[in-house]
């Protein structure tokens, strides 16, 4: 039946040739007059020929007309140094093209911009597991990386599959199930509060044990032991022995803090004693052996602490957790911003695997190692810790949500076929995100039966579930041919705003076929955005759209940028993430992306930007005095300026291309194959702009570079780390011939954008972009839609994007408004 329909459409199109438009003579004349010289049989620049333009019969022909239209609209073509057509003529031409495109859209509808069966990517898989099974863990670590397409890693066409991936699906399903299904007793909740004396006591214990064993040695044994040691070690052992005899508590890790002074700790210090945490930049908080993590789960870690001697900034403690083995990158639990002389409790909910520990470190400085004696004389800023409390595992529900989802109250060890059928009828729709027919349930029930012949019912059930988790019904977003039903809509919505599986409410509404009603859809969007899970969308989208994940990939050169540090790096990423979050959550205008009179900063970043009056390490919204700072808008974010440079130099080409692709949505054509790239040179003789101008003298390079470079030249006053500069950084030999940082040539931040006009500096450039802000709105809609739909967009999506942009601009230009408009627009339901 479906096939038949398809044939009819095609035949309609081909037989109604008489109604098919023809290219009007005026248009042919226009193309012959203004275009064919460069884009014709003789020359075909950018591999494009106008003499091959045809009445649209397929998507790729439409794309070519779209290209012509865009270039005419933007004033890119004909090039400024060529013969120009008059506006009236151009309007006539564009009018015809628009008409033809809109005709083609109707005819070709459903045959282009199609959604490709899309599998869950890593992030979606992880979130789905977390939401469905309530378990945590790195289940996707062994998954091959997901490829990116059009800037996002959730593009169905680019998400490939391999045997390695399938094997990884199998083993991770097993891990998930073993973690989810809990047959034992509810873990006992334990709580333990201590201070840092525990570490001192540990050390004293070690000393005592060692001295005791020395005592029991024969003189011969002692001699052998000492002979084996290198001289330094030998000396230290003997000294330690002497010290121990005088005072068994001479050594310690953390000194006590009393009346504003450090003193050596004693074993009989009262429980309330405070200790200074200064000597190491980190330390494992090793709770008493009873608190050693035996059971994976959620724990609450509370630290009561304050800072001393820090003047203004306070101290930022970084709390991480990991297995204590070396080489493992600890996961961040959070930060505690300690205030001067003001004790406060800071709590963190941490998911710990067996054997993992929580670790506390001063985030922004690594103190030198000092001996106990030296430490007592230490004068610098310190963290004072009153107490450390550890509680858990925190079990809200036993058995957990996942277990209940999979088994209800049924005993897994006594499962029979009928029970499995019932359990699966309940669970399969959640796992497969749609209604599951009884035939499919039956197939899986039979699979259970087969497994149960050779293994225990528990094992057989797990294997059955494993099969379900490797089935394409789970791994792919299923959408029936030709239409997006309520279930598919629920999934699209959920994987967009939560980056995860639809919850029970969404599935229920899908079952009742209510979710497609505009009113209910709106309510659901609002509910979903209020849920914490929507943070995943904001983070993931921002990270990929603006590529903030690239910050730190290339360390800025230490000689050229000596001030760059980890604290700045973290703040840079945080600024951009929080900036988008702030715009979105408060539904601020998209204009803020181009220019704003505020940003999210902390003291370190504000200092970097030269903005006074920001004290402390916490990121917060800062209002700008626009007369005093150039900052404002994404283009002045250090993160973006950093990722568009290579650690040593900046390149207007790279930055220009980046802006065109990510912020303006007018990606340039790729470079021709035979042009050698410019060789960066920091020896100070030439600037990159001088080199580029030379490059632009070459005719073949000129065409593209005069369009690209101006979008990057404007940013040249921002260095590799995003700091403002008037001159390039350079290295020159100083005294004793060592290379030293020196002032290079002056930056010349002026240029002309062919389609927008000239600018003298960055500020003027930003104003030009602001004047043309429509393209930024358009790009925003384009990026959001690409991400939301997980596919590449094409010309047939244009009219929808236009609608979204128009509707948003009419209302409040808000970023959140745009997300609503996108979801409510037919594009979101396009099959």
């Amino acid at each position: 039946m479906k096939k038949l329909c398809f044939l009819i459409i095609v035949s309609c199109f081909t037989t109604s040739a008489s109604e098919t438009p023809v290219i009007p003579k005026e248009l042919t004349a226009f193309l012959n007059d203004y275009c064919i010289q460069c884009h014709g049989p003789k020359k075909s620049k950018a591999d494009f020929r106008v003499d091959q333009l045809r009445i649209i019969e397929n998507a790729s022909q439409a794309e070519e007309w779209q290209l012509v239209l865009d270039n005419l609209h933007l004033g890119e073509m004909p090039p400024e140094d060529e013969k120009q057509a008059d506006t009236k003529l151009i309007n006539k031409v564009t009018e015809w093209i628009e008409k033809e495109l809109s005709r083609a859209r109707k005819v070709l509808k459903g045959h282009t911009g199609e959604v490709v069966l899309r599998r869950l990517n890593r992030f979606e898989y992880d979130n789905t597991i977390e939401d469905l099974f309530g378990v945590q863990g790195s289940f996707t670590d062994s998954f091959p990386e997901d490829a990116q397409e059009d800037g996002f890693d959730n593009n169905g066409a680019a998400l490939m599959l391999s045997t390695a991936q399938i094997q990884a699906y199998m083993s991770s399903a097993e891990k998930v199930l073993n973690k989810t299904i809990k047959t034992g007793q509810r873990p006992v909740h334990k709580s333990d509060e201590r201070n840092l004396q525990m570490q001192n006591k540990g050390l004293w214990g070690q000393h005592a044990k060692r001295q005791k064993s020395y005592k029991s040695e024969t003189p011969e044994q002692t001699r052998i032991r000492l002979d084996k040691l290198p001289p330094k070690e030998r000396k230290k052992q003997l000294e330690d022995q002497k010290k121990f005899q005088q005072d068994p508590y001479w050594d310690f890790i953390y000194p006590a803090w009393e009346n504003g002074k450090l003193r050596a700790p004693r074993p009989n210090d009262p429980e309330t004693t405070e200790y200074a945490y200064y000597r190491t930049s980190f330390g494992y908080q090793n709770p008493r052996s009873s608190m050693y993590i035996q059971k994976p789960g959620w724990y609450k870690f509370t630290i009561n602490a304050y800072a001393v001697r820090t003047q203004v900034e306070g101290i930022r403690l970084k709390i991480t957790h990991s297995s204590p083995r070396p080489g493992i990158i600890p996961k961040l639990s959070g930060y505690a911003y300690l205030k001067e002389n003001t004790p406060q409790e800071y709590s963190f909910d941490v998911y710990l695997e067996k054997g993992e520990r929580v670790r506390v470190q001063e985030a922004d400085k690594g103190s030198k190692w000092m001996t106990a004696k030296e430490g007592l004389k230490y004068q610098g800023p310190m963290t004072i810790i009153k107490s450390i409390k550890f509680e858990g595992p925190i079990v809200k529900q036993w058995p957990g949500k996942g277990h209940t989802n999979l088994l209800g109250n049924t005993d897994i060890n006594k499962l029979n076929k009928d029970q499995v059928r019932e359990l699966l009828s309940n669970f399969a729709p959640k796992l497969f995100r749609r209604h599951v027919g009884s035939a499919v349930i039956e197939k899986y029930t039979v699979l259970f039966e087969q497994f149960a012949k050779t293994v225990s019912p528990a094992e057989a059930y797990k294997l059955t579930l494993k099969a379900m988790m490797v089935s394409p019904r789970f791994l792919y977003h299923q959408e029936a041919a030709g239409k997006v039903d309520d279930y598919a809509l629920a999934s699209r919505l959920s994987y967009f705003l939560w980056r995860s599986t639809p919850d029970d409410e969404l599935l229920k509404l899908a079952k009742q076929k209510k979710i497609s009603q505009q009113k209910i859809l709106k309510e659901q969007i609002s509910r979903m955005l209020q849920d914490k899970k929507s943070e995943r969308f904001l983070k993931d989208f921002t990270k990929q759209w603006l590529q903030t994940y690239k910050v730190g990939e290339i360390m800025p050169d230490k000689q050229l940028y000596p001030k760059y540090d980890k604290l700045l790096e973290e703040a840079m990423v945080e600024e951009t993430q929080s900036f988008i979050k702030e715009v979105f959550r408060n539904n601020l205008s998209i204009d803020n992306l181009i220019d704003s009179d505020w940003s999210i900063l902390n003291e370190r970043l504000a200092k970097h930007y030269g903005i006074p009056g920001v004290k402390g390490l916490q990121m917060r919204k800062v209002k700008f005095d626009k007369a005093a700072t150039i900052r404002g808008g994404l283009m002045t974010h250090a993160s973006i300026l950093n990722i568009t440079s290579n650690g040593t130099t900046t390149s207007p080409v790279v930055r220009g291309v980046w802006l065109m692709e990510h912020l303006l949505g007018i990606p340039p054509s790729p470079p021709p194959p035979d042009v050698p790239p410019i060789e960066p040179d920091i020896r100070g003789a030439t600037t990159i702009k001088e080199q580029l101008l030379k490059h632009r003298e070459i005719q073949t390079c000129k065409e593209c570079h005069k369009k690209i470079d101006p979008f990057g030249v404007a940013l040249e006053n921002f260095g590799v780390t995003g700091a403002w500069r008037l001159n390039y950084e350079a290295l020159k030999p100083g005294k004793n011939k060592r290379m030293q940082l020196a002032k290079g040539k002056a930056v010349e931040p002026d240029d002309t954008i062919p389609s927008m006009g000239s600018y003298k500096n960055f500020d003027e450039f930003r104003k030009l972009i602001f004047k043309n802000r429509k393209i930024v709105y358009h790009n925003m809609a384009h990026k959001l839609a690409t991400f939301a739909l997980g596919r590449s967009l094409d010309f047939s999506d244009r009219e929808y994007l236009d609608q979204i942009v128009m509707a948003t601009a009419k209302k409040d230009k808000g970023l959140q408004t745009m997300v609503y408009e996108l979801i409510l627009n037919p594009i979101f339901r396009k099959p």
Partner: protein
Amino acid sequence: MNSNRRNFLKGAGVTLALPWLETFAASVPQNIQQRLLLIGVPLGLYKDAFLPKESGSSYQASEYLSIINQFRNNYTIISGLEHEGVNGGHSAESRLFTAVPSHMKNKSSLDQYLAQYIGKNTRFDSLALSAGSNNFSWTAGGSMVPAESKMANIYSKLFVEEKAASKAKVLAKLKHGQSIMDFVFEDAKSMSRKLTKSDRQKLEEYFENVRATEKQLLKAESWVNKPKPKINAKNNFSTEARDADIVKNYREVCDMTHLAFQTDSTRIITFGYFRQNDVVVPGVKSAYHALSHHGMDKSNIEQLNKIESQFFIGLKNLLSKLKNSKEGNGSMLDNTTIVVSSNLGNGNNHSTKNLPVIVAGGRYKHGQHLAYREGRYPLSNLFVSILHQFGVMDKSFATSTGPLKNFELV
């Protein structure tokens, strides 16, 4: 051992009739182990320190090449090659050994392609290792093969015998895995009827991979009860990847490569030598990647040379090990083709032209610098030549135009 074949090739030259060689290749005895090692250096090699100025056999060894000069007659330096249609600087990494133009979906890399032919003979079809990176190994479906960076894990996989009880467990798991694959295959089939054409194509990919996984599980099953090779080397390999210690990581990967080849655990290995940030190399203060964008600065270049020299020192050690391991009438090196290359011809400006290439070992006429006119031949022509050496007589590989001219077998 393989003297017959050698004599034959000598007599006939390399232009012999193809069908003949094909049948000949099919009759190559299984105990002739021809191996392939692909090494990628994603940040490129600084040209002035690497590439000899002269071509031919009497070239003057460059700074880097003087490190491995003692093996001069066991390798060939090739310059002027590039991948047609592959661009994008670092993103060209994924295309280095696949040669698929950047605008197209990626396909099999040379190692994975060859593994289809010779992989079946060993416990592992191929190994993807990492001394800092490996984005080089790709499946036919355009999916990256995940690489292992902890050599201790590879050691266990290759040499540590499981206990009988866990063997039984492994077997049961493999069997269950096969049943699951079988089942989901059928399940997916019933699903595919309701999908659009383009969806069905995507599902086709799923089918192919499910079938291939099933095959892998079957192969694994057939190896479970075969004893693993016993070796003298202890498992002193790292259990954690200490990323900054690039030299140590690289050494371990090379040692593992040698062990894996020696025990015939696999005949195909790929790895990359890379580190984004700081490296533990004396005299190097800046990050490796930043240094590759040296901006012509002398001190940057000096530091970069130090990191790249370490690469050649490691290569020298690997070559000596292979050369000192006797095999048949020759050494392991004679039966191991090593290709070192990069996706960047110049790390400073991300150029993907004139890629650095070293081919060592195997049965080629070595000892020269083959300098082609820049851009004249694609690098994939070399891959065709290599395939031919393995008896896989394909006429082309991705963008190739034939085997590489003047690069001949002994």
